């Protein structure tokens, strides 16, 4: 019996699968592939698996991780292809390997946020946004687990941020804190809306590009 980790991609329509639904989807993926993963003991056994860092609904990612344990020996080399046969559109397993590194070593998330401006990017936006996120304190409202709003200073949670102006959009590249507490990159939109309403984008789409450890190396 071994602890395994899957590296997978979540994009297209699969972006809208919520965390709980994604867990259910993976349970079925294993069964479709004829694999039986380890179940908890007790009266209502459920499969033992966990998604290392749940991705907010609507965001895409090429670096999701899922940990699970198996009852039988599985060949990691063939596992991705086997699972991908049963995947919904947009979900793709890239790699399977032994889960060597503990999840607590995951420290940062790299992401790209694309800010759409339907009427063209307002002049000087890149510079203004760079200034905004260079402030010592930047308070935004964030939904808590209890569904109410709390004020959070996001500056300590942002390790790196840069902006690149394009035709009708600005691409923001961020490295943010992953956990305890983490930052949802989409919250930069809330900060812009609050502090620089004239630079409010019409839409923000977020793609997670890498999971990093404390030293900035890839966590996998």
């Amino acid at each position, binding site marked *: 019996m071994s602890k395994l980790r899957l590296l997978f991609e979540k994009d297209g*329509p699969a972006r809208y699968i919520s965390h709980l639904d994604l867990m259910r989807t993976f*349970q079925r993926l294993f069964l479709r592939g004829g694999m039986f993963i380890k179940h908890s003991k007790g009266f209502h056994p459920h499969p033992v698996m966990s998604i290392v860092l749940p991705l907010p609904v609507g965001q895409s990612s090429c670096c999701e991780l899922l940990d699970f344990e198996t009852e039988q020996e599985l060949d990691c080399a063939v596992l991705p292809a086997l699972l991908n046969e049963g995947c*919904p559109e947009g979900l793709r397993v890239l790699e399977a390997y032994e889960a060597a590194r503990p999840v607590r070593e995951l420290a940062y998330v790299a992401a790209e946020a694309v800010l759409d401006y339907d009427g063209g990017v307002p002049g000087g936006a890149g510079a203004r946004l760079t200034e905004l996120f260079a402030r010592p304190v930047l308070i935004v409202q964030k939904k808590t687990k209890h569904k109410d709003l709390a004020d959070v200073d996001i500056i300590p949670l942002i390790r790196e941020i840069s902006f690149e102006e394009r035709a009708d959009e600005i691409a923001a590249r961020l490295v943010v804190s992953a956990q305890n507490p983490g930052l949802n990159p989409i919250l930069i939109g809330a900060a812009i809306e609050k502090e620089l309403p004239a630079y409010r984008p019409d*839409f923000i789409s977020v793609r997670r590009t890498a999971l990093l450890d404390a030293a900035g190396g890839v966590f996998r």
Partner: protein
Amino acid sequence: MDKRLERILPRVQKPARYVGGEYRQVVKDKAEVDVRFAFCFPDTYEIGMSNLGVRILYGMMNEMPGVWCERVFAPWPDMEEEMRRADIPLYALESGDAVGAFDMIGFSLGYEMAFTNVLNMLDLAHIPLHAAERTELTPIVLAGGTACYNPEPLADFIDLFSLGDGEDVTAELIALYRKGKAEGWSKGQFLRAAAELDGVYVPSLYDVTYHDDGTVAAITPRDGVRPTVTKRIVQDMDRAYFPVKTIVPSTEIVNDRVTLELFRGCIRGCRFCQAGYVYRPVRNRSKDLLVRYGIESLQDSGYQEMTLSSLSTSDYPPLNDLCDGLMDYCEEKKIHLSLPSLRADNFSMELQQRLARGRKVGLTFAPEAGSQRLRDVINKNLTEDDLLQSCRIAFEGGWNAVKLYFMLGLPTETDEDIVDIAKIAAHVVHTWREYAQDKRRGVTVTVSTSWFVPKPHTAFQWEAQITKEEYERRVQLLRDSIRTKSVSYKWHDSDTSFLEAVLSRGDRRLGRVLETAWRKGAKMDAWQDYYRLETWQDAFSACGLDPAFYANRVRTKDEVLPWSVISSGVSTAFLWRERERAYQGVTTPDCRGQCSGCGANRLVEGGKCDV
């Protein structure tokens, strides 16, 4: 994905419902498709994807070369609002293409409360509501499903109705459409030809006239079309399409499991039950085939739960053997088998216990009426002894919760019958006291009552629904009669059952009422959050019609019923005979015991039912 759609999705609840892409959805190359079918379910994704009929027809149509069937569901009002604001027309999940661009638009209609959603979906698709306003061959708007056994309230909006099992007739309709499209037929030509197909009702080819009192004077076929349309059936369930490889939603739906259809029809003949009559005759699927379908479906889907589905699962002759055949696989893979629609008899209970294996899900029995007299009236051949015996086995086996379903307002019901409901519940509690193994956790007996809705094509199609005031009085009487703390009582909200009674036996004039109510905001009427009786009352007054005329009036034997143009294969003479026997309190044996000559056997090749 459409950029506009991408922008609204973060603001709506459960966006996974609106994007498609699920495992086993069918995507075809448009260049190789000449008939595009938008399969519309007039309720939410979670409800529609739980419907086996949708899965059967979806799979069957997509196996036809050149045909691409896609799914369309009613958006929840938050999504609808966003779609209207962003000017996104109703679209199909697989391609994302607007429904207006499809060749055929088919609605699955299982219940009357979804009628306004049909109008709303046509409107969202930018398709003219009235059949008469759609003058071209494309798109053809059709509907099928149990609610179409009285299609008249929707006659103004739907081009044609398909009655009965859809497998064969859908294929025939598609073939006919393809021919018409290739030969440049007009819509009129197509509909006239479609009316020649068995099981197809084209409402525009029938004129309805009314007496001064509002009852139907005559339904006159035009242009030589047949006077009565008889439903279609699948002759051989072993050769019928079964969706082994079917879509597995990526988000949780209501019926989130494999559904294995054991048989169609029902041998019982409960006189209130529309399904029991309109799905006749009984046609079983063979046990070995079911075992194979069941295991293959579980393997393909990855589901860990399977429902053995039918109108009365304990009436499937080889049920024990079927369960044996599935048990090894299910035990090994930790798959839970569930058997709804079991009768409250010993056999069922023993089976239930075997399957439960420690998992004690709730037990539900439906005696329907409190007294033996009234159960005989409705031909529910279940005695209180049967019920108590089943409860005893359950309690001995460790169950400690039982739900009991009843109807209030059944024909001939008296106050005594209602008080007897409370007595049955008390007897169940008593049985628990006597036989329960472990009394520490107590017992919960839940009594639920609904307001009886007389349905077309049943023995009670001529009956009046009791009024709202009377229903509420009977609810109060039952509340007062229940004295045991262990018994809790839930009653169905009265207003929806009233509208259901109106729509299910309505005539063509209700089309105007439907449209008026929808324009005043009625939609999602099956959902308590959205249903508003006042909207409907306003619509009725605006149209000068009285809903009580439809709900609370007794029909005479010689009245022309609006749905008499449709035949379920069961003869009206038989239904009337059943009504008379009901009033005499005489039961009718089930089809296995003795044939009662309902007429449905004439639908079967060879004229003999598979009982």
